[in-house]
């Protein structure tokens, strides 16, 4: 009952927001802004630039709110807009390269998981990746996009997307090893 009540409230808020009701828009903003800023922060290392990308995303959300047809999750719809806005923001800032490399499918990487790594460290690991690798890795591993969708959004081939992910994983693995050794010494 609560979920239905909440959804009913949200759909009413969305209707009001479509009619440029500033209060309804503010409520929706307050509800999703923190989460969306975190999403933008995956892609953009600087927090102020990430906030700017987030505001750009919300501007497009309220401008195109009529196009949301209540078919899926409203949060998921906003999130997709935020991801696209973050990518375009990075592209405006700098030229992103996606160097292609042949992927050796049998060559996996040692999946040593350390559950003690904190969120801040994880973000630092992601920030350390080159832009091209980072974008593909975040979209695939964190956001859950498929290689075909990544290729469309970034205007690259699926092969390039796969190679970028492989390279990103290699670098991350190396960094995690380094982190483990520095924290716990050699095993």
């Amino acid at each position, binding site marked *: 009952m609560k979920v239905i009540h909440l959804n009913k409230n949200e759909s009413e808020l969305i209707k009001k927001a479509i009619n440029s009701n500033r209060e309804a828009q503010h409520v929706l903003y307050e509800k999703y802004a923190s989460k969306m800023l975190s999403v933008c922060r995956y892609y953009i290392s600087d927090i102020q630039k*990430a906030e700017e990308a987030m505001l750009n995303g919300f501007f497009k959300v309220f401008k195109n709110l009529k196009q949301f047809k209540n078919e899926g999750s409203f949060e998921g719809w906003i999130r997709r807009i935020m991801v696209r806005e973050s990518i375009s923001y990075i592209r405006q800032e700098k030229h992103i390269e996606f160097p292609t490399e042949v992927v050796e499918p049998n060559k996996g990487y040692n999946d040593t998981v350390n559950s003690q790594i*904190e969120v801040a460290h994880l973000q630092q690991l992601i920030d350390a990746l080159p832009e091209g690798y980072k974008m593909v890795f975040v979209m695939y591993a964190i956001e*859950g996009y498929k290689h075909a969708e990544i290729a469309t959004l970034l205007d690259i081939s699926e092969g390039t997307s796969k190679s970028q992910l492989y390279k990103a994983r290699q670098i991350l693995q190396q960094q995690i090893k380094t982190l483990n050794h520095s924290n716990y010494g050699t095993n």
Partner: protein
Amino acid sequence: MAPTKFEDQMRNTLEKRTIAPSPEAWSKLEYRLNDNNTKKGSKLYWWIGIAASVLIIITISINSFSSSEKEVELPLVIEAEPEVLEELNKKTPVQNNKAVEVVSKNPSQQRPVDQETAREKVNNEQLRTPMNQSVVQKTTKSTVESNKNTILESTLSLIKDKVSELTVKVDIEDTASIIEEINNKSAVPTDKEIDSLLKAAQKELLIDKTFKESTRTVNANSLLKDVEEELEQSFRSKVLEALVSGYETVKTAVANRNN
């Protein structure tokens, strides 16, 4: 390559994170949204303004085009004195279909000259209704005077032509009779005879003049006076020419007889 466990853990950890935006973030967004609304409104007004200006241009062009057509299509000219018309029609047994109705009297009595052509272009029924006449007068007021002048000139020339035709006919008849007399008499015309002929011609002109004076109006008088002056000159020259040619024929006839 499916996401690894490490990546799953990463995702779960990062998904729980939230980052609070700065306090002024909403005010920035609100300002942009308000600015966008005003731009939309101004855009709408801009388009309305463009549409209105286009409509105005179209109406002005239609009005100017129609008024120019009216000016071209209404060769308004003037009704004549019926008496003058009758005289002219008597002496000119030629076609009267052309615009011979002349002499402006009262501008309110105007009507199109060539009715057939006017009907093709303008509906006469519309013209003859009082409302339409007033409209026509208003619209063509500026062109009426210029039209009057042109029509006066044309009618003058027509009058001159027809009167000259008349006089030429008369003169030809008279001179033919004179030549016959000369040929019959077989004598050289004397100066006295020439003078008498000239006097006779002048008498005829005076008679025509008085007759015309009794019936014509003020405006017609001036027209006819001009015509008469021209007639005198042309008549004299024609009589002289006829006499000279008659003299030549008589001379040759006499010369041949002697031979």
